[in-house]
C-alpha cells in the first residue's frame, strides 16, 4: 500500500476555528477504517499541535502520513521557536496569553499530551525561525 498523505494549513489568527484540520483528518482516518483508539490518539496529537500553532506561532502546516504500520504527524511552524524545551515539556508550564486562557487553553498540557499520545515524539526548534514537532503512532 502506498502512503496516504494529508496536508492542511492552520490559520494562525482564529482561536474559534482552531481544530478544523484535526477534525477533517479524523473523519478521513475513520473512512480508512483505522482502530478508534489510534484515531483518538492522532486526534489529540493534531488538535494540541494546531492549538499550539494558533497560540504561539501564527499558524503553520500539519502533514499526516498514513503508512501500512504507522502514522506520522508533522507540525511545522515559523513561529518564535522554543528557547527551553525541557521547561516547555513540563506539565503546567505555559506562555499562552489571556485570550487563549479565557477559551480554556494555556493549561501547559499541550506538548505533554502530544508526547503521551504518541509512540515517538521529536521537537526540532530554532529560536527566531520556528518549530517542527514530529510524532509517530504505530498501528498495532
Amino acid at each position, binding site marked *: 500500500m502506498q502512503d496516504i498523505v494529508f496536508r492542511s494549513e492552520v490559520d494562525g489568527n482564529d482561536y474559534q476555528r482552531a481544530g478544523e484540520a484535526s477534525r477533517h483528518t*479524523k473523519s478521513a482516518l475513520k473512512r480508512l477504517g483505522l482502530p478508534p483508539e489510534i484515531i483518538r490518539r492522532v486526534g489529540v496529537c493534531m488538535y494540541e499541535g494546531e492549538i499550539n500553532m494558533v497560540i504561539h506561532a501564527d499558524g503553520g502546516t500539519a502533514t499526516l502520513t498514513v503508512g501500512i504500520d504507522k502514522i506520522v504527524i508533522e507540525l511545522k511552524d515559523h513561529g518564535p521557536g522554543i528557547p527551553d524545551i525541557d521547561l516547555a515539556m513540563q506539565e503546567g508550564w505555559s506562555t499562552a496569553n489571556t485570550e487563549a486562557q479565557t477559551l480554556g487553553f494555556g493549561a501547559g*498540557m499541550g506538548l505533554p499530551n502530544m508526547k503521551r499520545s504518541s509512540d515517538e515524539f521529536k521537537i526540532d526548534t530554532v529560536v527566531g525561525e520556528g518549530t517542527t514537532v514530529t510524532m509517530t503512532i504505530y498501528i498495532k
Partner: protein
Amino acid sequence: MTVSELAEKMELEVFCLGDPEHGIDSAYCGDLLSWVMGRAEMDNVWFTIMSNQNVAAVAVMTDLSCIVLTEGVKPDEQLLERAKTEGLNLLGTSLSTYRAAAAFAKLEDSPE
C-alpha cells in the same frame, strides 16, 4: 447506560442529542481543555462550565459520550451549531459540577 438514559435520570436539559444511544463509561470534570484532552477517556461524560465551540472539538477528538454544561451555563451559539454539525450530545444542568458528578456517580453505582 446510554446518554438518553442519563438525560432522563438526571433530568438534564437537552441542547442537542446527536447520538442518544451512545454508551457511557465513567465521567470527567474539568474546564481546562488541554487537561481534559489529556485525562478524559473514551465514552466519558464531561462535566464543564466552558461553553465555547472549542469544547465541541475536544469532545470530538477525545471521543466523549456527551458534554454536560453545569451551573446553568448555556452553550454559546457557535458551540450549539458545532455540536449539531458534529452529531454530539450536548446537555445541561443547574447543578454545580460537584453535585452533578456526585449524582452521576450515584447512578453509576446503582443497579440497572
